[in-house]
């Protein structure tokens, strides 16, 4: 049998990066900016935290680099979609390509000779607390503050909110800075979970976070639940590896693709109505 405390611990370990990234997606998409670039921002952060942390041997500087890298990439997304009016999907794809190429490039160029050096990291529990705090803050912010209502208004109808005297572009820039901040934390956490940087180490977690966001209906608390659910699936998969379920061996690939399957089912409307922000993707 599985030890429940062990299972809970690995659920949180695997779920926390998803929570942070999904919240990042939430601030972006609630402001109306579709963001498939989460993956790229996380990857950039993971690489930056390792390179800087290794060079300076200072965990705080490493974290700062992670945040800076992710915020820069998300600001790029903001500039491209708002100032240059590039389609938000294309911009997100380009950011993912640049981040994947750039981090692989940096990793090869910077880490060759010194790969034995290790980078110091903050204890992962710090990130867990920040993630929990971020969920609560965001839930409160969206529901009870003026800024939160402005964010939702811009995301639901940029044109009307412009007529009401809001500046959608400014709101979106700020929202994307928040996205960068959260994705930066997520990337730094992923890197400190594994201890070093590898090519494409986020391995699609940005997309799983997007999936959790969709299942959670773009709301903070349900999104948290979806992320932990995906974390639990991943944890179960690690613990159940090789064991049999109902007499037959379930292949690992089934468990790893479960989050994607669940998301498809949710998108097909079988798990409740579509709650996408009305202004998602509008300029």
């Amino acid at each position, binding site marked *: 049998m599985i030890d429940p405390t062990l299972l809970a611990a690995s659920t949180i370990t695997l779920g926390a990066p998803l929570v942070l990234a999904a919240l990042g997606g939430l601030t972006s998409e609630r402001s109306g900016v579709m963001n498939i670039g989460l993956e790229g921002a996380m990857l950039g952060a993971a690489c930056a935290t390792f390179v800087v942390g290794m060079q300076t041997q200072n965990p705080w500087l490493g974290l700062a680099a992670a945040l800076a890298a992710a915020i820069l990439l998300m600001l790029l997304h903001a500039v491209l979609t708002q100032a240059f009016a590039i389609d938000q999907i294309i911009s997100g794809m380009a950011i993912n*390509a640049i981040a994947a190429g*750039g981090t692989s*490039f940096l990793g*090869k160029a910077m880490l060759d000779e010194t790969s034995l050096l290790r980078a110091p990291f903050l204890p992962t529990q710090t990130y867990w607390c920040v993630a929990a705090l971020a969920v609560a803050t965001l839930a409160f912010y969206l529901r009870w503050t003026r800024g939160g209502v402005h964010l939702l208004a811009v995301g639901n109808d940029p044109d009307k909110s412009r007529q009401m005297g809001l500046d959608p572009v400014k709101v979106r820039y700020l929202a994307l800075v928040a996205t960068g901040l959260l994705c930066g934390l997520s990337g730094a956490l992923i890197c400190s979970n594994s201890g070093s940087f590898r090519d494409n180490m986020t391995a699609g977690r940005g*997309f799983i976070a997007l999936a959790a966001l969709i299942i959670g209906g773009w709301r903070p608390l349900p999104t948290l639940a979806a992320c932990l659910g995906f974390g639990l699936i991943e944890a179960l998969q690690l613990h159940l590896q090789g064991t049999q379920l109902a007499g037959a061996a379930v*292949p690992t*690939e089934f468990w790893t693709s479960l989050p994607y399957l669940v998301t*498809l089912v949710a998108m097909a409307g079988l798990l409740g109505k579509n709650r996408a922000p009305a202004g998602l993707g509008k*300029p």
Partner: protein
Amino acid sequence: MGDIKGLGARHIVLVLCSFALVWLALAATKVPPLEALGQLVQGSMGSPAAWKQTFREMTPLLIAGLAVFLALKAGLFNIGADGQLVIGAAAAAATAIKVPGLGGVLLACLAAIVAGGLWALPAGWIRAYRGGHEVISTIMLNNIAGFLTVWLVTGPMRDPTQQSGTTAVLSSDSWIPAAVAQPPFSLSWTLPVGIVGVVAMALWLKRTVVGFELCAVGANRTASETAGVKVKGVTVWALMASGGLAGLAGAFFVLAYEHRFYANFSPGYGFDALGVALLSGGSPWGLLPASFLFAVLSSGSSAIQLTGVPKGLNGILLGLLIIVFASVRYRRSRLGDD
């Protein structure tokens, strides 16, 4: 879709920033940029073997590019080309192993088209009838396709004599032969077929009712709905046709080049295909230079790795290329369509 009006200083700044970034990246590796550029050209077009490699890369890029292009014409982003490609490749390999010979080749291509099309069906259905964005659903389908094919080649389709997860090698009578074979250069028939496909696509979009309806839906969904086009139906089958073409690209890569199917089959051809389709500039003819450019970058970047420039440069270049091009071509109008 934007016109060329409204280009200004900020676009020039964007281009300059892109150049600066690439220059900086090359400076970090201490390889002189011009030398790296020379190596890239040399490694992709400098010798018969290099040309062979470039044409080999160009084949899946052109056909998958055609697939993404078709969906894009209907106003849909088929990011799922990669998943459809590997599913098609797996179906083709499975069929060709069971049925050898020329009939097997044709049957394998057909199986790949059907498999790729069916793999795109959920995305089309969700988009048309549930309003879920096709980008998200195809990303999910890509990941599922990846895991499914890994499971297939480590389980049911695995060649037991091999160490790693791969199918058996196809018998040589079900390989698509080379059109030109003068070692070290060779050119498979698949690339001419792809070029014929481009011509067919150009004629089909211009000269047929269905092609016209597809473009109408891409240009303005509401107006075509009002004009009596069945927008939902067009959405579903446009994505399915796109998936079928992507599946065919996978089949060609199995039958003409790899002769087997293995885990993590595609190094991201489906994603590069999106770049190819975007760079084509809305015309099928544009797919030819675009896929050639991406193939040059791909085979050239393998070559410059030898001089100490990491392969990641390829990703940076592609991303910047897409950004610069999209900033000119694919702008959403401020008045808000869709």
